[in-house]
C-alpha cells in the first residue's frame, strides 16, 4: 500500500466544511420532503421549485435594499428581510400548489398526485427560465462581510458559519414546533393515521396545510442561503438540490424528521469527503464529475442493508 493521505490536512478540513455546508442545504430541503411524505405519503416533486421561488424572493429583497452597495447594519436587516420574504414566497407557492394540484387528488390513485407534482415542477422551473429570464441566470449580490475563523488546518468563512448556524437554528425551531406545540401534535397525529386523527377531532386539512407551510419555510431559508453561498440562481436551480434532498430524506428514512437532517449531512459529506477518501485508494480516480455516482451508489448500498433507511421504521406501515 502506498501512503494513505497524499493530501494535506487543510484539504480535508476544506472538504469537511464543504460537505457540511452542502449537507445543511440538503437537510433543510429534505425536511420539507419528509414531512409532506409523513402526512400524505406523497413525493412532493415540486418542493425543489418551492426552494427556487424562495431564492428569487430573497434576491429581490437584497437587490431592492441596495444590492452590492448595502453596508453596515443594513446588511443584517437586508438578510433578515430576505429570509422573511423568501419564507413567505415559498409558503405561498407551496400552499397554492397544495390547493391546486394536490388537494383535488387526495383520494385519487396514488400516482396521480406524483404526476401533477412533476407537472408543477416542470411548469414553475420553465416559467421562470423561459418565461421571465429567457435562459439567463441572476446572481446574488455578494454583500456578506469577508472574514474567516481559523482553527488549526480548519478555515471557516463567516458566510459558512452563518449558513450552518442559520440552518441549525431553523431545524431547532422546527423541532420545537413539532414536538412542543399543539400544531405539531396535530401533524404528528395525522402522520400516524389520518383517519384516527380525524376521529379525534383534529382538523386534518389544517394539519396538512401547516405541514406544507413549515416545509416551505425551511426551503425558503435554504433558498436564500444557497444564493448567498453559490451566487447563481435560475429557474432550474431547484432540480438537483431537490433530487438530492429527496435522496437524503430516503437515506435517513422517509417520514422521519431527524432522519432527514442526518441524511442531509450524511449525503453532503459523502459527495465531498467520501469521494475524496475513495480517491486515496490506489488506482481509483473519481474527479468531481463522478460525485453523483458516489451519492447514488451509497443510497443503494444503505438501502440494501437497511431497507427503510437509517431512521426508518422496521416495516412500512402502509404496504
Amino acid at each position, binding site marked *: 500500500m502506498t501512503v494513505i493521505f497524499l493530501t494535506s490536512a487543510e484539504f480535508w478540513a476544506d472538504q469537511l466544511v464543504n460537505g457540511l455546508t452542502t449537507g445543511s442545504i440538503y437537510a433543510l430541503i429534505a425536511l420539507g420532503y419528509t414531512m409532506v411524505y409523513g402526512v400524505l405519503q406523497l413525493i412532493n416533486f415540486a418542493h425543489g421549485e418551492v426552494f427556487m421561488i424562495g431564492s428569487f424572493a430573497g434576491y429581490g429583497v437584497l437587490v431592492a435594499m441596495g444590492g452590492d452597495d448595502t453596508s453596515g447594519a443594513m446588511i443584517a436587516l437586508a438578510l433578515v428581510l430576505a429570509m422573511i420574504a423568501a419564507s413567505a414566497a415559498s409558503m405561498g407557492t407551496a400552499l397554492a400548489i397544495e390547493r391546486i394540484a394536490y388537494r383535488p387528488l387526495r383520494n*385519487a390513485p396514488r400516482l396521480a398526485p406524483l404526476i401533477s407534482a412533476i407537472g408543477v415542477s416542470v411548469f*414553475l422551473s420553465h416559467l421562470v427560465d*423561459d418565461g421571465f429570464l429567457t435562459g439567463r441566470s441572476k446572481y446574488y449580490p455578494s454583500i456578506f462581510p469577508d472574514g474567516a475563523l481559523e482553527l488549526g488546518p480548519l478555515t471557516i468563512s463567516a458566510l459558512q458559519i452563518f449558513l450552518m448556524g442559520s440552518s441549525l437554528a431553523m431545524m431547532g425551531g422546527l423541532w420545537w414546533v413539532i414536538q412542543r406545540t399543539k400544531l405539531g401534535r396535530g401533524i404528528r397525529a395525522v402522520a400516524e393515521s389520518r383517519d384516527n386523527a380525524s376521529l379525534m377531532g383534529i382538523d386534518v386539512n389544517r394539519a396538512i396545510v401547516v405541514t406544507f407551510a413549515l416545509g416551505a419555510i425551511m426551503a425558503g431559508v435554504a433558498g436564500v442561503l444557497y444564493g448567498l453561498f453559490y451566487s447563481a440562481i435560475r429557474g432550474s436551480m431547484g432540480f438537483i438540490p431537490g433530487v438530492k434532498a429527496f435522496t437524503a430524506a430516503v437515506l435517513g428514512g422517509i417520514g422521519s424528521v431527524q432522519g432527514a437532517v442526518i441524511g442531509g449531512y450524511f449525503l453532503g459529506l459523502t459527495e465531498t469527503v467520501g469521494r475524496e477518501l475513495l480517491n486515496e485508494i490506489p488506482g481509483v480516480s473519481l474527479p468531481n464529475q463522478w460525485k453523483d455516482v458516489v451519492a447514488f451508489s451509497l443510497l443503494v448500498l444503505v438501502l440494501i442493508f437497511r431497507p427503510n433507511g437509517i431512521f426508518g421504521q422496521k416495516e412500512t406501515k*402502509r404496504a
Partner: protein
Amino acid sequence: MLESVRPGVPRLPEWAHALIFLIVGLLGWYFLDDTWVRMLFLVTLYATLGMGLNVVVGLAGLLDLGFVAFFATGAYVVAIWGAPISPSVDGVVNYWVLLPMAVFAGAGIGMLLGLPVLPLRGDYLAIVTLGFGEIIRILALNMDDYTRGSSGIFALAKPDYGAETVDSVREFFIMILIAAMAVWFVTARLRDSKVGRAWEAIREDEDVAQGMGINTVRYKLMAFAIGASIGALGGAIYAPFVDFVAPAQFSLIVSINVLALVIIGGMGNTTGVIAGSAMLIGVPELLQFQETADVLAKFEWLRDGLNVFIDGFNAVSFADLGKLPPSEEWGDKLALYRFIVFGALLVMVMVLRPSGLFPSRRRELEFTAEEPAPAGSA
C-alpha cells in the same frame, strides 16, 4: 369527476384500438411529409417505451423513475458494437444481431438493478431507480474509452433488408410501428396470463400474494426484466434513427416523460399509453411546427379583441399590461413556452381525470369505490 363508468355504452375491445392506431399510423405515413412522420415516430417510440414501463408500474405496481437506464442500454449496445467509430470495439456487428443483444442486455441490467432493490417498497424504489438512471447517464458521460463521452457515437450500422438499408425517417417509422405492435401483443398476452394475474395480486397486496404462495420476488424481477428489455428495444431502434448516441439524450426527463404518459393515459392499458404518448410527446412537438402557427394565425381577431380588452383594463386600473404580440411571433413563442405548456398539461389532466384518459376497467372500479384507494402502490 369520475363519471367515466358508463354501463350502457359498449366499449371497443383493446385490439380494435391497436388496429385503429396502426391504420392512423399508416395513413400518416402515406400522406404526411417527413417532419410529421418524424413526430409520429417519436410518438410511437414513446408509446412502445410506455408499454414497457406499464408492465412495471401499471401491472406489477412498482414505481420506476429510472426507465431511461434501459433505453440508454439498448442504444449504447447498438452504438458500441455497431459503429466503426466506437473506441473499445473493432469492426461492426450486423444490426439484426445487435437488436436481440440489446434486448437481452436490457433484461440483464434490469435484473441486476432489480435484485437488490425489489425487496424495497413503494417510494424507496422510486428514488433508487431514479438514482440508477442518473448513474447510467454519468457513466456514459465519463467513460470516454467506451462511449466517447459527450462527443457521442455516430455513423451507426443501419438495419438492412435484402439489399436495402433502413435509413429514412419513413422506413424507421415502419420499423417502430412493427415493434410497437409486437410489444403490444406480447404485453397484452402476458397481462391476461397466469403471470399477469400474479402481478395483479402483488400490486393489490403483496403480503396476501405471498401468503397465497406467489414467489413475489421472482414475479417482480420478471416484470422488471420484461419492462427493461422493452426499454432497450426502444433504445436500439432509436439509436440508428437519430444516428447519434450521447449521454445528453438520456436524462431524467425521458423517464419522467414515459412515466407521465403511462399514468396520464390510464395505467395498465395500452390504449391509454398510446393516447398519453400522443398528448405528451406529440403536442410539444406540434407546438414547434410552422403549420400550428399558421393555423393559430387565423385567430388573429381573437388577439385584437384581447388587446382591446387589455387597453381597457390598463385604462381603468393604472396597470401596464403589455399587448399580445402579432401572430407572426406566435410560432416562436409557442415553441419557447412548450415546456410550460407541458407542465400545466400534466397538472390539468391529472386534476380533471385522476385515473387517466383511458382508465383500465378493473382499476376504474377500484377508484370509484367509496373508500379511498389503498395508499401503498406495492
